[in-house]
């Protein structure tokens, strides 16, 4: 024992006298970035994977979008002087142009000649074909591959790739700009032992190199100086993962971080008043709805569902729960989705109408039902309690059953939950994708068992309709039918809230809620 202590002391003495190199002995030699070149961002969690075809959470998606390019991307537009995405207009990225066949069942993409992966290899037709194979074989993005209707991907020559579809499909071009459809240097992946390597490494052609990623603490990205496109203005982005929202807010106020996500609505007011902090709060396409199981009594009667829709205290939810960081929802499709229609939507907070509808449905005394509340989101809790109080006024007893989120997701899948609230963000900002999953009879996420021939037929016709105006007319008809039949009571549309220091320019709001760091610059 004594001997170890002596040895330790000796080692320490040796080390202190300068025999051992330590991590900070030349801490000033690392090039200090000037302030305008570095951004520190605060996220709530660290993500799960860097594999583009497996990412499905905002943090993971953010790194994928930074490190990879896609064949095509979304256009940008201005909205009241602020940049935002225009998701129904697709513009070139790695593909400089493309041609569709006369019957819209095959597309030929011509690749840019100057695009290179981050370690110098050119982006070739082979890489595109192999990337699509990777997506097809993945767990997470394979269903998007199916939804895009891709039959096969073939190399025409070094610069051209042909993609055949099973049928004309208007979702195809809208799915391609997604992070899932990133073009990967699959040869490099093969050299490193296969697709598993992509979970923690990147092989892209994108504007940033991911230099560090530890999901429990922080990640760092550095500008890709040989990027083929517009050079990113920020040389370095450090992302800190901070679970506690109040810490994110305090760090932003003190200027330790330049940008923070997931700021709770109650903190938005105090941040607005803080010096040098800007809040960008704009509608995304994330919605929240109160779903009633259309196969379980009494919700099999549309009049009962309409009555519930008239009993929701809409203003209280928007103002008291969300503190104004949300907007009214007037269709099953978000208002920022191209093709949105609120035809047939008549619901306001009107308890007399609600009582009358219940009486018509033969339930003048009201009824009692089970409501399942999933954990994980503060606002759901508050919403449920407020709705419960309103329903009590019309004689309806809502029994709230709380459940942990994993259990909640499992319960929904049985399609036997009587009533619940849940949020939803459609990855593809299109009514076809949205309604197809949620409200058609075959929809895999139609946990409320809504089944309506009018909606199903309109959706099927629209799926293969190449003309945009005709398609939107069909989707409009479907939305009108849904609004009248009220399988859900619509609660609100969430705003995407990004808080940042003054002097940060270029932030563009995308419906997927992902910050594209290569668009940002710091002027102060």
């Amino acid at each position: 024992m004594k001997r170890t202590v002596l040895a330790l002391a000796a080692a320490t003495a040796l080390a202190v006298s300068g025999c051992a190199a330590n991590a900070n002995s030349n801490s000033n030699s690392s090039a200090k970035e000037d302030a305008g070149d570095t951004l520190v961002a605060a996220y709530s969690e660290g993500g799960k994977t860097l594999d583009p075809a497996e990412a499905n959470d905002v943090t993971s998606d953010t790194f994928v979008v930074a490190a990879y390019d896609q064949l095509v991307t979304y256009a940008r537009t201005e909205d009241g002087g602020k940049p935002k995405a225009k998701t129904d207009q697709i513009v070139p990225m790695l593909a400089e142009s493309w041609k569709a066949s006369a019957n819209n069942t095959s597309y030929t993409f011509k690749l840019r000649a100057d695009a290179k992966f981050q370690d110098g290899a050119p982006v070739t037709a082979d890489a595109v074909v192999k990337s699509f194979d990777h997506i097809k074989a993945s767990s997470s993005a394979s269903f998007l591959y199916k939804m895009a209707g891709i039959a096969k991907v073939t190399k025409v020559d070094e610069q051209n790739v042909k993609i055949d579809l099973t049928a004309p499909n208007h979702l195809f071009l809208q799915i391609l700009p997604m992070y899932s459809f990133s073009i990967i240097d699959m040869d490099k992946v093969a050299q490193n032992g296969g697709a598993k390597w992509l979970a923690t490494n990147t092989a892209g052609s994108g504007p940033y190199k991911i230099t560090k990623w530890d999901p429990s603490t922080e990640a760092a990205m550095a500008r890709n100086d040989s990027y083929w496109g517009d050079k990113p203005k920020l040389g370095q982005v450090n992302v800190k993962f901070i679970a506690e929202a109040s810490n994110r807010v305090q760090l932003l106020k003190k200027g330790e971080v330049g940008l923070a996500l997931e700021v709770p609505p109650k903190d938005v007011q105090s941040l607005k008043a803080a010096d040098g902090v800007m809040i960008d709060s704009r509608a995304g396409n994330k919605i929240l709805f109160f779903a009633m199981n259309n196969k379980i009594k009494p919700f099999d009667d549309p009049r009962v569902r309409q009555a519930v829709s008239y009993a929701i205290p809409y203003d209280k939810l928007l103002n008291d729960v969300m503190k104004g960081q949300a907007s009214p929802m007037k269709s099953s499709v978000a208002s920022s989705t191209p093709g949105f229609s609120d035809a047939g939507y008549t619901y306001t907070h009107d308890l007399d109408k609600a009582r009358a509808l219940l009486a018509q449905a033969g339930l003048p005394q009201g009824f009692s039902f089970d409501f399942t509340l999933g954990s994980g989101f503060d606002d759901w809790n508050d919403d449920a309690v407020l709705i419960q109080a309103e329903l009590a006024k019309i004689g309806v007893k809502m029994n709230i059953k709380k459940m942990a989120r994993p259990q909640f997701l499992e319960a929904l899948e049985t399609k036997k939950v009587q009533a619940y609230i849940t949020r939803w963000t459609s990855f593809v900002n299109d009514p076809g994708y949205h309604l197809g999953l949620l409200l058609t009879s075959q929809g895999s996420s139609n946990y409320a068992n809504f089944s309506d021939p009018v909606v199903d037929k309109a959706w099927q016709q629209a799926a293969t309709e190449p003309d945009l105006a005709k398609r939107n007319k069909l989707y409009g008809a479907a939305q009108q039918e849904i609004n009248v039949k009220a399988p859900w009571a619509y609660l609100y549309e969430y705003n995407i809230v990004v808080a940042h220091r003054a002097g940060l320019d270029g932030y563009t709001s995308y419906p997927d809620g992902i910050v594209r760091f290569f668009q940002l610059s710091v002027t102060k």
Partner: protein
Amino acid sequence: MNLVLRRVAAMLPALIGVVVCIFVLTRVLPGDPARTLAGDQADPSVVAKIRTDMGLDRPLHIQLVRYFSDLLHGNLGFAWHTGHSVASDFASRLPATVELALVALVIALLAGVPLGVISATRRDRPVDHAGRVFSLLGASMPLFWLGLMVIVVFYNKLGWAPAPLGRVAEGINPPTGITGLYLVDSLLTGDVVAFRSALSHIIWPALCLATGSTAIIARMTRSAMLEVIGQDYVRTAVSKGLKPSVVTLKHALRNAAPVIVTISGLQFGQLMGGAVITETVFTWPGIGSYVVQSVLATDYAPVQAFTLVAAVVYLAANLVVDLVNARLDPRIADA
């Protein structure tokens, strides 16, 4: 040495029991890990594919056998929600938690033992009453609230504490890794810069975490001392004319020591558990916050591994306590 071997052998059945229990527990908990991982937009076929990848489609007893054979090969499994093996996640996070718990324990001992001794020697005087009030407050203080208050007051308002962001300040390199404990590593490599930064970062969460333990150690020390002070040999020592300080520290405290050592060992286990909350509040990159995330994501492997590690830590702490007590009191060694 014999004692050590005997004790380690006795631990094995306990460990196997713990492993089987936690395995069964995680499997009967509601919630499908594959669905949680896939998200709510994924097609059922995708969920089924993930379930196969995870090996959850096999019968329970097969899964258990595979888990044991993996354990014997030193494989703790794969953490689906971080995309790393559990072993690598633990390697990067466990030292942070151990360091936090150790620093908190040192603080609790340095504050708790003197407090207990003073309370015992000045029984029913104002000092003793003050100690009792402090202990009551300390033991009943909600850690979560205390942590948030410390951040608001000492970081936000006064600016004494560094930003609650990990183990060293932005722009300072962590010390060269030897033990993974930043304070120890920076001393070993003579890295003054890293040592100061690491100390300023660890001291606040450690103080919060130590509050409850300080209170408990103070109370236990007090009662142990009171029991000893009433004994004949202490009276003899006093009547022999020894200085009160010598009597208290040499005779009384020496005999009260086994109790203090035992409670410290138990407290170390408690501190590892308390770290869960402290780590979340202070964004401390340790095992506690990681396990909370794993539970929320119904990720079995990290939860099982954590239980295993916790059991090992607890048993090891008990062993250390027994060994130290055997040195302190020869009668225990023979028992």
